[in-house]
Structures are given as structure tokens and as C-alpha cells.
């Protein structure tokens, strides 16, 4: 591990560009959490199926994100692609649950 780090050349990153990219990703992921919550509500998922659907939706969005950045060229835009999937996933999960229960109540209960 240490040798691997040693061999890599130092790269200067532009902070404003990183912040711009991460804010775009954050915006998209919040929207995706809300919209996938609405979808789960419409589908009438209950219990663990809803949680599984959230995981599927977020992973699907992650692949779309990598597809937009370019399968090979995502390193030009992000430092780590794992953090794009993992960062703040519990916060988004609560957004998801909010929309899920709301739309489930609107469509299936009333």
C-alpha cells in the first residue's frame, strides 16, 4: 500500500472543480432518493422490499453517474468512485422513507 502511494506522482486538484462536481452529485442523489421513494410508494412496496428497492435504485443511479462521467474517464472528475455510492446514504435513506410513506399513503391507503 505504502509503495503504491509512493509511486504515484503528486497531483494538484482544483478545489472549486471538486466542490462543483460534488454539489452536482449531491443534488442528483437527493432528487433520486425522493423520486425513488415516490416510485416505491406507487409500487406499494412494504417492509424490506422497500429497502432493497432503495439499494437497487441508488446503485442504478451510481452506474448512470459513472456512465455520464465516462467509464474510463471518471478519474478526471472524481477522486473516488466508492464515495459517490456511500457518502451520506443514510441521510438519503430518510428522504426516501419520507417520500415512500407519503406516496404509499396517498395511493394505496386513501
Amino acid at each position, binding site marked *: 500500500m505504502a509503495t503504491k502511494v509512493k509511486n504515484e506522482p503528486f497531483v494538484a486538484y*482544483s478545489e472549486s472543480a471538486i466542490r462543483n*462536481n460534488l454539489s452536482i452529485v449531491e443534488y*442528483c442523489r437527493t432528487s433520486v432518493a425522493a*423520486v425513488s421513494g415516490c416510485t416505491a410508494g406507487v409500487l406499494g412496496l412494504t417492509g424490506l422490499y422497500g429497502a432493497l428497492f432503495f439499494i437497487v435504485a441508488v446503485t442504478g443511479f451510481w452506474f448512470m453517474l459513472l456512465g455520464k462521467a465516462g467509464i474510463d474517464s471518471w478519474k478526471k472528475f472524481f477522486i473516488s468512485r466508492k464515495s459517490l455510492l456511500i457518502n451520506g446514504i443514510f441521510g438519503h435513506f430518510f428522504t426516501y422513507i419520507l417520500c415512500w410513506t407519503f406516496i404509499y399513503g396517498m395511493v394505496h391507503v386513501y
Partner: protein
Amino acid sequence: MPATFIHRSILTVGFLSLFHAAYSAAQHRSYLRLNDLDFTHLPLDIFIQTLISLFIIMYGVLQVAGDFKEIKASADLEDRTWETYRNIPSFYTFSHRGGKCSQLASKSGLEEIE
């Protein structure tokens, strides 16, 4: 590629389709209630429409949100030329002899013409 009208309309279509699917699901639910049936699963067409509209909205949001910038600090320096660096606005001089000379020149030119 910045967000265009097409991407915004894709997003709108996705939301409309999701709303339509939700309305259909609500109607299906009221149909079941009126006929005293139990809810087992949604009809397949509503299910598919909901999933497809989710993916349409995901795509639309991704395109509307904006473009990524390259995070390397040298990325936007690479396509500049030497002329850009030699251009120093603080050293611009506007009140130089050129104005006077051209005034004289034009005056003498006018006199010659007259």
C-alpha cells in the same frame, strides 16, 4: 453539454408519466375496494410504467444538474496560449502619443484636402 430544452422536457415527461402511473395505481386500488378483492400486486403495465418513468427521471435529473469539471488544477491552463499570459491589463496605456499624432495627421490631411 449544458442542460437544454430537450433534457428539461425529458424530465417533465418522466414526472408526468410517474404521476399517471400513481393515478392508475390509485384507481386500481379503488376498483379492488369496490369489488371486495384483496390487493396482491399491481397490474404489470402500471409496474413497468412506474419503473421506466423512474429511470427517465434519473436520466433527466442527471442531465439537467450540469456538467462536471475536471478536477486537475492544470486542466483549464492547458488550452491557453502564450499570448494569454503576455496580456497584462494593468499595463494598458490609453493616453499615449498615438491620439495626438493621429489628430495632427487627420488635421493636416483635412487641410490638404481643403
